[in-house]
């Protein structure tokens, strides 16, 4: 069954469908970056001084990088996972010292004409180590010690990135919660966590008196219905009291810890503030561009909002506005469809792995990508706060593209080797 020759062959067992979707998304990215940076006077596609020319280089080198990963031994990634994790953590430290500050975030290490963004690479470093940890000792993720160790692996890069401070990239690491859930993390922990998030938001919307009294009423009702079961009554009482205590902590957290611009963004997204010319300008213009695309879009290079620069940061964080304007609802549907198809497929592939390492890694990768997609598109259409994370494989940027390429191709390599031992 094990055939070393076979496993070393270049494209043996590689999932071509994933590669095709990968290439398709890169192509969508290039086309839309071209459109958002299009200048009728310099229409050369291979103009390497322009962003789209550079993106072409990134895609080319990304493919080379991806296929070189396919050439490597699948065991390399599990063996060297701690080293790779260590290197990316080291880079996160380096960037705090020598990093270049762009737009308030010290996130880039200048390397000649390129800038490296270590937080992008920390994603797959963390994914690898997390997979290694869960696979190697076969820990029970129900006991506190294993949970804490897994949490530590995730929280370290989060803490380092928060120092830059890059809230968007920090939040991405929350997506590791879901692979842990798959591996046995109790569901109530997730419920508590997201419950906390919801309470945090409600805390901003509602008057404290209303919120606290409604929690008390709700808790009281639950206690009443469970009045025969002492244990539950105690548990509900504890939950109710800690929820109320949490409200005060959350309020302080929001008002004292968050940066003013982050606070404003959250307030804008929740509709607590309206300011179409200020911080909400980007979102407003992005929504206008996307909405104006209507069913079939204005057509390639014909988007007026795109052409005339109405959406700031259009080739990076707001690339989806170009898709929305020029390709319309049809284009948006296809792009989102591609992502969902890819991720559902990745989950299915992950489940067919014999090795826990490959499965955890696959889940991690799917969740990271989905988190990016949901937040990025969500912010472009005003559903999510503007936290500045790229749309995977589509947004302009080398670090981001390479990081996702590595993330995906490592998984492809692991999958192609699913018959072997890792």
């Amino acid at each position: 069954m094990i055939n070393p020759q076979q496993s070393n062959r270049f494209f043996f067992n590689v999932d071509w469908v994933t590669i095709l979707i990968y290439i398709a998304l890169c192509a969508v990215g290039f086309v839309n970056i071209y459109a958002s940076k299009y200048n009728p006077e310099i229409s050369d596609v291979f103009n390497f001084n322009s962003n789209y020319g550079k993106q072409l280089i990134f895609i080319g080198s990304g493919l080379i990088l991806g296929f070189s990963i396919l050439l490597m031994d699948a065991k390399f990634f599990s063996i060297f996972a701690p080293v790779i994790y260590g290197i990316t953590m080291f880079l996160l430290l380096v960037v705090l010292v020598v990093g270049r500050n762009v737009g308030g975030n010290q996130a880039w290490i200048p390397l000649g004409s390129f800038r490296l963004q270590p937080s992008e690479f920390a994603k797959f470093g963390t994914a690898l180590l997390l997979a290694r940890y869960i696979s190697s000792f076969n820990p029970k993720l129900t006991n506190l010690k294993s949970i804490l160790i897994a949490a530590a692996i995730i929280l370290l890069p989060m803490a380092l990135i928060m120092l830059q401070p890059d809230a968007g990239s920090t939040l991405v690491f929350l997506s590791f919660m879901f692979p842990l859930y798959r591996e046995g993390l109790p569901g109530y922990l997730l419920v508590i966590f997201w419950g906390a998030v919801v309470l945090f938001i409600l805390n901003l919307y509602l008057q404290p008196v209303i919120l606290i009294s409604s929690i008390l009423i709700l808790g009281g009702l639950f206690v009443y219905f469970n009045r025969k079961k002492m244990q539950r009554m105690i548990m509900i009482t504890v939950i109710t009291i800690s929820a109320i205590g949490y409200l005060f902590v959350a309020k302080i957290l929001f008002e004292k810890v968050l940066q003013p611009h982050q606070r404003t963004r959250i307030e804008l997204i929740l509709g607590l503030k309206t300011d179409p010319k200020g911080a909400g300008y980007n979102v407003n213009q992005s929504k206008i561009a996307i909405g104006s695309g209507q069913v079939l879009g204005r057509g390639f290079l014909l988007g007026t909002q795109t052409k005339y620069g109405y959406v700031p940061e259009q080739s990076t964080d707001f690339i989806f506005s170009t898709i929305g304007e020029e390709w319309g609802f049809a284009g948006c549907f296809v792009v989102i469809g591609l992502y969902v198809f890819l991720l559902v497929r990745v989950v299915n592939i992950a489940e067919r792995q014999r090795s826990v390492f490959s499965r955890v890694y696959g889940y991690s990768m799917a969740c990271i990508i989905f988190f990016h997609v949901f937040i990025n598109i969500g912010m472009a259409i005003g559903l999510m706060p503007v936290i500045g994370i790229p749309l995977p494989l589509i947004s302009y940027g080398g670090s981001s593209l390479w990081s996702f390429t590595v993330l995906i191709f490592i998984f492809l390599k692991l999958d192609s080797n699913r018959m072997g031992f890792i």
Partner: protein
Amino acid sequence: MDNLFSRKYVLQGIFIVLALVLIGKLFYMQVLSDKYFLLSNNNVLKKIYTFPARGVIFDRKGKVLVQNEPVYDLLVIPNQVKEFDTLEFCNLIGIDMPGFRKRFHKATVQSRYQPSTFEKQLSVQTYAALQEKLSRFPGFFVQGRTVRHYPDSVAGQFFGYVKEVTQKDIDDNDGYYRPGDYIGKAGVEKQYNDALRGERGVINMLYDARNVPQGSYLEGKFDTLAKSGEKVVSSLDIDIQKLGEQLMTNKVGSIVAIEPSTGEVLAFVSSPGYDPNRMVGRQQGNNYMDIFGQPNRPFLVRPISGYYSPGSSFKPLDDLIALQEGVITPDMTFNCPGVYWAGNHPVKCEHVDGNISLRRGLARSCNVYACHVFQKLMTQSRFKNQKQAYDEWQAKVRKFGLGQKLDIDMPFERKGTLFTSDQYTKRFGKYWQYTTVISLAIGQGEMSATPLQMANIMAIIANKGYYIKPHLIKSIGDRKVIKKDYVQKNYVDVDAAHFEPVIDGMQDAVNAPWGTANASRIPNIMMCGKTGTVQNPHGKNHSVFIGFAPRDNPKIAIAVIVENAGYGGTYAAPIASYLTEKYLTGTISAGRAEKAEAMKKISALPELPKPKIKVLPKNADSAGKQPSVPATAPQSNTALNTKNTAATP
């Protein structure tokens, strides 16, 4: 496979549900709502309007009456303004610093990124001076447009004026107008506004996020050029219009001349008038208030909204009805002892003519004859009572255009006064009879007409039985469109044969030595006419003359009213004769030309009512100044102040 395998579905479920949330929101934004599409056009598309030139107006001989002059609006985009020498700028366009700040503030409040008007209608000279230095004033630019210019400076009330639209105009016209557009507010400019205004041009310009123009939208597919207004040919003869206004200098009143065969109005004089050029340009508002405040109401369009009793000029009409009814014949005579007794109310004549027939009665303007005719009409045996007779009669009078609008193409036309029997019953009670309303026989009493209606009666007599609705515009546009109403004949139901004796009488009034207007006889032209000296409650009698000429194949019908000036033969008749002669021959014959010049210089302004100002000693100025009283108009012929019964010279 382990027991946690099913959690895969939880995750895949989350992916799909959240993706559906995104798609749902996108579906709303892109498919269901067009709000964002409209907003995106707001972002990039700006409509730049070019203003059309209003249509040119010609007189009946093809002379230009109104033309367009370029002016320049100064616009500003506040956020593009950089530091500059404001003092120099203010001097260039003729404003002061507080004015500058006020305007700039207003523009900034309107929009920081959009152009708004800074100063309107800079003249060519100002523009030339400014244009040279405009580059020193970033953010400012000029936009050309045109304003009206009236080379002859006459016929202000005929032209009306053009003004920037008000919010009400915008609301009333279903969004056709935008702030800054012009609209005709009076006169021909108002009446023919739709033809004259032309069509705005529009350029759909694309602007990028930094407000830099990026060319036209879809290669100008939806752009339009400004289309000039249609040219309009007026029926006025500018030469006699001018002469008319000159003759009416320092007199209050009106002249209307009509070409009988077409109904075209040849002269449309309302005095006092004003120079239409004053209602143009930056001083329009001030000038408007100035003209508005002048005595004798220059804005009143007297030819169509001035009410005058027709006086003796009504007699020919009454005679025509009597002839048609058969109650008199041309040869029938009445005895004139110098007074007609209507009950115990005397109607006096200024002369004793003895037995008098139609022809002489008209020429001498005999009141007694007129009263007898009226009596005959009211006491016909075929009617049950006099009220029925009266109603039949007033209906016939109405056919001549009295008591109703003639639908002239001019706003603010009024219909005049002509009572029905019911109205009289209301006023006098049930028991009135012809003697009660005998004043009507001589065109006084409850009867008033506009100068246009009087001129129209002359057109009817000249045409021997019909009129065409008088109008001021011959044709519109290159296709020479003319309203159907303005070619239709309106018959008055009097046989052509009955006109001859009446015209004979009118011919004598001007040409016979015993005629009332004999002094206004025109050499070699047979003018027929009728003087009137109209009593009125405002002061001296109005001097009235109506007539037409020449007798055979008449070319001009005319009505002249000079308010509070005295006898019809003294002012109105000579003025009518000069105008008629000028129109028919192109000149005024030797000997009469000097008299015409003298007429231009005579002042016959009515005495102004004494301003009622109570001098309150407590409130008076401490310096002891008298409250200022407006200077009364000069009076040249106070001697002719006769205020007796209907005077008929």
